[in-house]
């Protein structure tokens, strides 16, 4: 019970006593079924932390950085589909939430952020630890509030929760001046608003979509993050029609990977089959997605032969990037059910056969390297396990190689690409579902952005978080771009000389550590790591200079993808596959500077 531990007054009943703004905040959160919040205290939010001691029904998780609190709340929300809550003090505490809020905005995560602020009469005077956090977060929240009157506080919290969850979800921030937290509150504690109904798509739009599908010869479905809660309906739809399905980075799990109709992920590091299918399709039905540029490649070359059906809740996304022939605005679930009725089955055998041929081209990493290691780890996961990733090569490898059978088992920072996201998100998800294994794959770079959250594992004795660091001694993804597009000038991406001993780092927090440096060591290390009854860390030391392929270079069209690793081909030829692994990088920043 974390925060409350050791703070219960001996022999004296806790009394909630006179209601204040701060107490009304907790009462409102509790009324809304909020059981856990992630946060970090400070001067301007002390009344809220004081009031917390009267509300043992809400668990507060003390992270070691507010960014960790925000990402943990996101992890909670992404895994459960429910709102995540994070808390910070004014000024620096509030600004430390900013990255998490921007991340939640991009990935449509329902998040409530509560910040303290200086007392109202000090606001706008550059008072100690004052920051205009509502101004700062204006473009990266769905909405935000400054509570100027204690009587409005509970209503605003209730409304903020409603807004965060309504329609296309997103983050909402409520900034509460310290004097408002302290002020007496005489009103009622609001109950949750009814969830606003999601509009159903119009019959006319469904009819037009059906018409287009019936005339298709090479249809394909592309499902995004907005389709996760309609996974069952979309699966039924695709199977009823025999339409192959692509799931975006955010949509992985919206369709079972074991189904032969699944083609993988599209875009920059998408599968050959997915990207070819998009380039050849005559009807592309996008569901719950926004045609991110990492998905489309060069827009002019995206799905050049296809009529586009776009099923999407957020009207602003329809036609924003890609011309849409049939906009279907509304609930993806309803749309999928309606489109399943009247399905034609198996009318495009050539198309399915062609796709299967492309699918077979996907390479499995068969030689030692980051891909090999990631595959070995994800192959050991069960459909119930939650897999988070950080950002970089390991993320793209995990997205390519993991096989998700269910939605909400894959958490990653898709829109913002936030290094440091993976580990705290895994903690949040692990706390939301304590009976489920919460695995995170991180790079040696990104892990260090939020590594201090090892303390959170220790403090709350969290036992189901399994950390895997793919250590290539580089900021790998940046290095790959430098290799391919910057003449191999490895500027400021070498970490090898300064990385900590990750096992010692874990040990400092009582987290058991395991290490593998070769294909031979890996299976044993994975077994021991997963079998450990505690949360544990596995470091996999991999060769420095591996690339992620397939790859669509920035600015190219999907059909211009580089299917396999050109370096690997050359390597095989030159029989260099067994070169010593710990050699220095080909060129370091030092050399570049010398040049």
């Amino acid at each position, binding site marked *: 019970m974390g925060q409350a531990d050791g703070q219960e007054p001996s022999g004296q009943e806790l009394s909630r006593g006179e209601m204040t703004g701060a107490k009304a905040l907790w009462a409102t959160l509790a009324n809304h079924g909020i059981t856990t919040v992630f946060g970090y205290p400070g001067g301007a939010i002390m009344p809220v932390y004081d009031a917390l001691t009267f509300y043992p029904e809400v668990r507060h998780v003390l992270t070691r950085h507010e960014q960790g609190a925000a990402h943990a709340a996101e992890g909670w929300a992404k895994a459960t589909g429910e709102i995540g809550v994070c808390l910070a003090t004014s000024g620096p505490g509030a600004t430390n939430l900013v990255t998490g809020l921007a991340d939640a905005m991009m990935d449509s995560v329902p998040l409530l952020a509560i910040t303290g602020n200086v007392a109202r009469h000090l606001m706008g005077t550059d008072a100690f630890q004052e920051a205009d956090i509502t*101004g700062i977060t*204006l*473009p990266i929240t*769905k909405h935000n509030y*400054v509570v100027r*009157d204690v009587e*409005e506080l509970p*209503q605003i919290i209730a409304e903020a929760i409603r807004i965060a969850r309504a329609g*296309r979800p997103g983050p909402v921030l409520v900034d509460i001046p310290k004097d408002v937290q302290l002020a007496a509150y005489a009103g009622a504690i609001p109950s949750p608003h009814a969830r606003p109904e999601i509009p159903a798509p119009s019959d006319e739009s469904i009819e037009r979509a059906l018409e287009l599908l019936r005339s298709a010869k090479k249809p394909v479905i592309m499902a995004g993050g907005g389709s996760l809660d309609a996974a069952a309906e979309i699966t039924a739809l695709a199977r009823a029609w025999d339409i192959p399905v692509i799931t975006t980075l955010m949509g992985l799990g919206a369709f079972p990977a074991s189904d032969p109709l699944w083609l993988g992920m599209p875009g920059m590091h998408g599968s050959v089959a997915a990207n070819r299918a998009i380039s050849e399709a005559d009807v592309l039905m996008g569901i719950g997605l926004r045609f991110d540029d990492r998905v489309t490649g060069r827009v002019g070359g995206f799905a050049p032969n296809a009529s586009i059906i776009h099923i999407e809740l957020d009207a*602003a996304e329809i036609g924003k990037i890609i011309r849409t022939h049939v906009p279907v605005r509304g609930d993806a679930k309803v749309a999928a059910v309606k489109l399943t009725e009247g399905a034609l089955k198996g009318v495009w055998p050539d198309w399915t056969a062609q796709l299967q041929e492309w699918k077979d081209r996907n390479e499995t990493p068969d030689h030692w390297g980051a891909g090999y290691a990631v595959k070995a780890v994800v192959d050991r996961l069960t459909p119930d396990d939650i897999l988070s990733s950080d950002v970089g090569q390991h993320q793209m490898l995990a997205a390519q190689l993991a096989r998700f059978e269910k939605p909400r088992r894959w958490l990653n920072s898709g829109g913002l690409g936030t290094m440091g996201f993976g580990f705290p998100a895994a903690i949040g998800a692990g706390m939301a579902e304590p009976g489920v294994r919460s695995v995170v794959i991180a790079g040696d770079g990104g892990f260090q952005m939020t590594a201090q959250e090892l303390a959170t594992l220790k403090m709350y004795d969290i036992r189901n978080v399994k950390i895997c660091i793919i250590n290539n001694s580089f900021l790998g993804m940046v290095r790959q771009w430098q290799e391919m597009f910057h003449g191999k000038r490895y500027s400021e991406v070498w970490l090898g000389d300064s990385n900590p001993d990750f096992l010692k780092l874990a040990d400092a927090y009582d987290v058991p550590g395991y290490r593998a440096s070769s294909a031979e060591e890996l299976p044993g290390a994975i077994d021991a790591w997963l079998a450990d009854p505690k949360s544990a860390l596995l470091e996999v030391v991999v060769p420095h200079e591996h690339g992620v392929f397939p790859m669509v270079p920035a600015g190219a069209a999907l059909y211009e993808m580089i299917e396999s690793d050109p370096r690997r081909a050359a390597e095989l030829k030159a029989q260099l596959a067994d070169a010593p692994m710990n050699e220095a990088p080909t060129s370091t920043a030092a050399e570049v500077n010398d040049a």
Partner: protein
Amino acid sequence: MTEPISYDQLLSILVRDEPRVLTRITALFGRRGYNIKSLSVGNTEHPGVSRMTIVVHGDRGVVEQAIRQLEKLHDVVKIIDHSLEKYVDRELVLVKVAITPESRVEVRQIAEDFRSRIVDVGRHALTFEVTGDEGKLTAFIEQMRPFGILETMRTGRIALTRGSNADIASHIYHGGESDTLRPALEGLEAREERARGVPNLF
């Protein structure tokens, strides 16, 4: 590919009268690179609701995207896209024109032709107030330009749809036809009601 045609487009936006609303709206336009040509804001008959008229320059796609993004803002109660209906629009301009003893009469005569009022009389300048649509104001300024324009200030355009096709809900105009604002306004009223019942603690 042919370039899409850009032109001035008129939007009315009814918003909750709360702090930062103007910032939210203009930030949205700014971030997405939509250029606001003019913006005017004022109260409506309904307490708690303000009305903005915005002129955006861009092609139809830009304006449609702007509308859809605006619709997502919690502060926005309603958006009226004037390109879809007939409307009246007006703008007010103050123009300070240099005069000499020789030009004085002629300047006054032009102003009279435009039904313009003199709002300030100086020894070397006259200040006129003109209202009208954009074309009229531009014509006025062009007529005055040869005499020497010292300063101008335009309010930006304001617009209303024509006739009984009321922009605002019936319970504001008592007996109109449209009720589209009601759900949003009810929430607003409830909050105002609560706020009124509360003594100010500080």
